[in-house]
């Protein structure tokens, strides 16, 4: 009888302790294990990192790489929580730059890699390193740069009688009208996710604001300059003319055939403004799961009277940061990412532009090659505005744009929303 009681007590105590023990799974104390977090949860991307880790393990005896692929939308929240205690956080993790990186650096959660990345790699990476450099110090190993632009269906353009890709805003409006007259939805936009709609605003701002005003506004987070409202007004024109796909407010960006990428992949809409990842996303959404055959690309058109730098680019830069408490072997791990072989494979697996110049030269895809040329001609690439501003103001900006599109907000409200958000964080 007594024995049973003691047993029962033991079991319940064990249950409680067991519960407390869950939630580990972060960095391990030993020097031969690298905990590695990335966001490629499926397909070629996931395979790429598995192959990469396997080769690294075979080169370094006794080292294990513990990979955790985390769904993109959950990534930031999980990382913030795990890094509360550096010893429970991952050793190497994906970092997208901008305000989030600045916050993590300020909290001492990212290792200064200035002396850790080899000189050879620094040379190969060149301007790609800009996206991971803060106050002259390098905090990340970039793997890809992903500028955006407009992806379109060549067949649908031909069907509407458009012979040349638009280069100015007027030509774009013209093309939209022709498509609409031909009974085709001109532009697909996944406004449910907000950022795809907000990208139209980012690009218009980049074209309309002079580089000085743009830089200054972003640095001071003050958007009172006139060009910020002007960008909203241009977007409103496009919206009022009805060039976005039907029901765009409840359209998602990438999920399934009814998403904006799905509409383009299935020839239900003619264009989409997106980053370089677009061909890879479209591939999974075409009826036969093959790359979209008639996919074309053109740079975001220039805006007449705009003071922005000619051909300026905006996009995402994916890189990898290192936990300050990570073992030394983690440094070798990130340096390996810049090897030519793995950069080439990265570009194929993710259908994107690699970060090193030597691998960029190997890219054969026509649209991507076009973007690389543009990248080399322009004075570096700006980060997406929401990434650059951080989640707080970035989210407010994106919401402001959605409100504008849905008719419940004005261009002035976008600016006001960004200022209001500053009070919350």
């Amino acid at each position, binding site marked *: 009888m007594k024995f049973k009681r003691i047993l029962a007590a033991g079991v319940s105590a064990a249950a409680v302790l067991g519960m407390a023990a869950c939630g580990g799974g972060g960095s391990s104390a030993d020097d031969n294990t690298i905990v590695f977090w990335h966001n490629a949860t499926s397909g070629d991307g996931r395979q790429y990192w598995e192959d990469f880790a396997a080769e690294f393990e075979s080169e370094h005896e006794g080292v294990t790489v513990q990979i955790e692929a985390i769904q993109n939308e959950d990534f930031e929240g999980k990382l913030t929580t795990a890094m509360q205690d550096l010893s429970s956080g991952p050793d190497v993790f994906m970092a997208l730059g901008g305000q989030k990186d600045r916050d993590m650096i300020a909290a001492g959660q990212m290792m200064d890699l200035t002396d850790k990345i080899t000189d050879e790699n620094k040379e190969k990476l060149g301007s790609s390193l800009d996206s991971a450099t803060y106050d002259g110090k390098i905090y990340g190993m970039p793997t890809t740069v992903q500028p955006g632009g407009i992806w379109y269906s060549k067949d649908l353009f031909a069907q509407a009688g458009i012979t040349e890709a638009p280069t100015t805003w007027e030509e774009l409006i013209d093309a939209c009208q022709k498509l609409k007259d031909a009974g085709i939805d001109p532009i697909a936009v996944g406004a449910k996710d907000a950022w795809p709609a907000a990208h139209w605003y980012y690009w218009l701002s980049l074209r309309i604001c002079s580089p000085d005003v743009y830089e200054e506004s972003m640095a001071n987070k003050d958007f009172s300059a006139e060009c910020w409202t002007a960008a909203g007004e241009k977007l409103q024109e496009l919206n009022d003319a009805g060039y976005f796909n*039907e*029901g765009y407010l*409840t359209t998602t960006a990438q999920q399934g055939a009814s998403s904006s990428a799905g509409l383009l992949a299935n020839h239900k809409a003619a264009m989409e403004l997106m980053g370089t990842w677009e061909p890879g996303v479209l591939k999974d959404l075409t009826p036969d799961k093959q790359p979209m055959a008639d996919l074309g690309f053109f740079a975001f058109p220039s805006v007449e009277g705009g003071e922005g730098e000619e051909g300026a680019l905006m996009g995402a830069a994916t890189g990898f940061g290192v936990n300050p408490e990570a073992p030394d072997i983690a440094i070798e791990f990130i340096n390996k990412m810049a090897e030519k072989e793995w950069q080439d494979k990265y570009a194929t697996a993710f259908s994107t532009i690699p970060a090193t110049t030597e691998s960029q030269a190997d890219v054969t895809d026509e649209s991507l090659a076009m973007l690389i040329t543009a990248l080399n001609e322009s004075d570096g690439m700006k980060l997406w505005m929401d990434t650059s501003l951080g*989640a707080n103001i970035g*989210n*407010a900006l994106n919401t402001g744009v959605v409100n504008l599109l*849905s008719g419940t907000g004005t261009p002035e409200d976008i600016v006001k929303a960004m200022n209001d958000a500053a009070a*919350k*964080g």
Partner: protein
Amino acid sequence: MTSAIQAEAARPRSAKKEKKPSSGKLQRNLEILVLAAPAIIVFVGFVILPLILGFYYGFYRWKGFGMPSETGEFAGIDNYITAFKDPTFQAAIGHTFIVVVGSLVIQAPIAILFALLLNQKFKGRGLVRTLIFVPYVISEVIVGTGWSLLLQKTGAVNELLSYIGIDGPDWLADPKIAMITLLVIISWKYIGFAVILMLAGMQSIPEELYEAAKVDGAGFWQMQWSITLPLLAPTLRIWVFLSMIGSLQLFDLVNIIWGSYISETAGVSTMATYMVRNGRDSGNYGYGSAVAIIIFIISLVVALVYQKFVLNRDLEGALTEEKQAKKRAAKRAKEAQRLAASEVK
């Protein structure tokens, strides 16, 4: 009846206890400790502690990195002021209460009617009972994804409507319709739970009452009105409580069908979606915690007021204080006396 049996069974045990009072008491305390400890630890760890931390975080402008006192900036009650002044939060509170009231008004009559129907004997009753309960069992994510695909501007519902020549509206994005759409989906999803509760309540009503009423010549609806409804009241009160609490916490359906951006413009954002959107998604962990505390207080006040004024008669002896119960018993005795006196007159 069960309590009588329990009392009967308890007697020999208490007699045994009297034999060895000291060791028995110790054993009993140990038993209580061992059995209650896991529940208490979970409750303290996942309810009380987060609450205290939420209060603490809510006083800081804090991005979630490190400790607020080191990496944050003390803001006093600024977060609370900003929240109350934010028109989108005010709107979200409004939407939440529309959902609270709307689901009660829509679901209560439908659930009672369904339960009445399912309480009768007819062929295929079991199947209908199961079918009504199915939506409640399906996960919110699946329900949300399904409805959002059906109700898109170019979705299946409007496609069907176009066959009969109706140009369907934008069920989800149009601010005039979105709230109605949400209430319909919520009712469809949760009606099964209400029906099952009502059905259980009805089955505990003694058959004799209906037989007596029949003898007295009462019709079907008269019987439902005078017997079923009054005796169903305790069930109804508990269901109202559960439904209100559920509505106050509404998050998943809205977040999946509308997403955190469109829910604001469509007018279906709730307190919880506002908290996630402006707290976690925006990286404002301090502000989000302040909003969480506001939501907690609003829910607590609603729950306490309801318990105090409506639910207390059902919970008598269980949750309310003994003193109050005694007071009420005394009042009742007095009333009975008065009644008896007036009858004598």
